[in-house]
């Protein structure tokens, strides 16, 4: 059996669900919005077993061979956000939702089923410089980085590199921005919170999706410093499937494998001199944004990976 966990409106999850359904795969969708009526039991005796109750049906977790999970921040689920706004952090609904999440996460970490991806493996993305140190160990270049609370250090770093960008240190989504003289006026605010600065790397962006043994490369052309926000900033954006050298693809595959990520979205930039920089490995990639082939190639590869695990277990 294949278990999907997340929101029905989440495009990557719903595309995978539809494809699995088309193939008559035995698939269960655990809707995160129904967390307050979801029940879980996880037992460890000689083996890990468990039962999940959702929509009145019992799911034997021992029969789950593969999981694809993309749960959202519990606090942002409508039923929980509402409870939090009324009752604050001590809300019983919030506590219950966290307990469900904790139980499912514990099961995902301990099960022998294929999990795309295990939460502990996804966590490397919660600290960009920590993940960058793992990336650098795999042969990719990473931009020179400064994390600081010292305005003078930023000025020196800026002078050293000419152009620099700043972005969040953590996995909290932030828009990558170039430092400008406007930011200089706010530079004293740095002391309140360590901030990450990086040398600006000129070049062409690529997103490589690793799915098991498969890789899918897309080239991104945009005038925005952070192409993910190009459309909202009125900048151009073009994403096209492309081919990259075997060396680069092999490095991507090894990197994802070493991070224990069966599925990963790797952000690369190729300089005009042909050097490859890696910015980030996204452990829960929104691949539908990049899959412009019209053939759902990445989704089909994920479905294949999940189905193979289900078949192998039988």
């Amino acid at each position: 059996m294949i278990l999907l966990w997340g929101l029905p409106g989440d495009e990557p999850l719903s595309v995978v669900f539809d494809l699995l359904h088309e193939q008559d795969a035995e698939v269960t969708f655990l809707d995160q919005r129904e967390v307050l009526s979801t029940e879980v039991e996880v037992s460890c005796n000689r083996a890990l077993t468990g039962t999940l109750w959702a929509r009145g049906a019992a799911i034997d977790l021992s029969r789950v061979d593969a999981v694809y999970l993309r749960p959202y921040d519990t606090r942002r689920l409508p039923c929980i956000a509402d409870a939090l706004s009324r009752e604050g952090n001590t809300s019983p609904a919030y506590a219950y939702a966290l307990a469900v999440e904790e139980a499912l996460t514990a099961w995902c970490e301990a099960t022998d089923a294929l999990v795309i991806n295990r939460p502990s493996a996804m966590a490397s993305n919660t600290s960009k410089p920590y993940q960058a140190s793992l990336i650098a160990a795999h042969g990719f270049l990473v931009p020179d980085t400064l994390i600081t609370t010292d305005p003078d250090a930023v000025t020196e770093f800026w002078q050293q590199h000419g152009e620099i960008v700043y972005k969040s240190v953590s996995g909290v989504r932030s828009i990558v921005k170039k430092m400008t003289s406007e930011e200089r006026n706010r530079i004293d605010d740095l002391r309140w919170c360590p901030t990450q600065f990086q040398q600006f790397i000129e070049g062409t962006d690529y997103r490589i999706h690793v799915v098991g043994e498969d890789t899918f490369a897309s080239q991104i052309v945009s005038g925005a410093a952070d192409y993910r926000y190009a459309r909202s900033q009125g900048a151009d954006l073009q994403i096209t499937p492309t081919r990259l050298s075997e060396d680069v693809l092999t490095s991507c595959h090894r990197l994802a494998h070493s991070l224990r990520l069966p599925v990963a979205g790797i952000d690369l930039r190729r300089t005009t001199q042909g050097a490859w920089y890696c910015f980030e490995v996204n452990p829960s990639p929104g691949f539908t944004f990049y899959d412009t082939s019209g053939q759902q190639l990445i989704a089909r590869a994920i479905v294949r990976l999940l189905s193979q695990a289900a078949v192998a277990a039988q």
Partner: protein
Amino acid sequence: MLVIVSNQFDQGAKSLASRWTAAGHVVGLLTPRDLSIAGWRCHPCGGKGHELAIIQGSVIPTESITGVFTRMASVFESDLTGIVAQDRSYVAAEMTAMLLSWLWGLRCPVVNRPTATCLAGPYWSTERWLKAARDLHIPTQPFQRSVHTRASHAEEPLPARSVIVTVIGEHVFGDEDGVPALWARRLAKAAECDLLTLTFEESGSSYAFAGAHLWPDLGDPVLADALVAHVQGRAQASAHGAAQ
């Protein structure tokens, strides 16, 4: 300097720092408050540049830190009383991410080495610890976690007769020579922990592993002294290795 990384209101960390200082060590306490002071300079991923840290409000060269003991899982919003309320969640995430990268990149011994899920080592669920034990063929205590709408969720209570041991480096405290000590060393090694407290259920002459955590009682002077000896020992060994 030995650095203890802890949350703002951790009295245990303060007591430990006092004890180690009284024993003649140079000790600094790094709390989230230090991350809101101008002066930090970190160059992760082998970047070039002089690295500076703030410990107890003072700027120090990172290279002067000889060992670190981390006693906190992450920065919590409650640590950030000096930050406006609406920014605390973001700042806590940023500070935790920065500390993870900083601790990971230090060349001196760091106990425990941080992981992506916890600054103080592998923050494993009971299920994950029991799996690690099963993989090592160590008998395990049955465990059940239930989350039901009709009752509050509760983990199984510990059995009455339990043996609690703490691993510090190569040493085991609490049951030095028994079977639990042997298993504790193997589990700590598998989890890549220098410091770990483990619980075993005793039934007659047999034992079963019940769980582990990263927060030993360092109010126990034997453990507190063993820990500083371990961090110092590793620091000396790494300095000796670097000199050669």
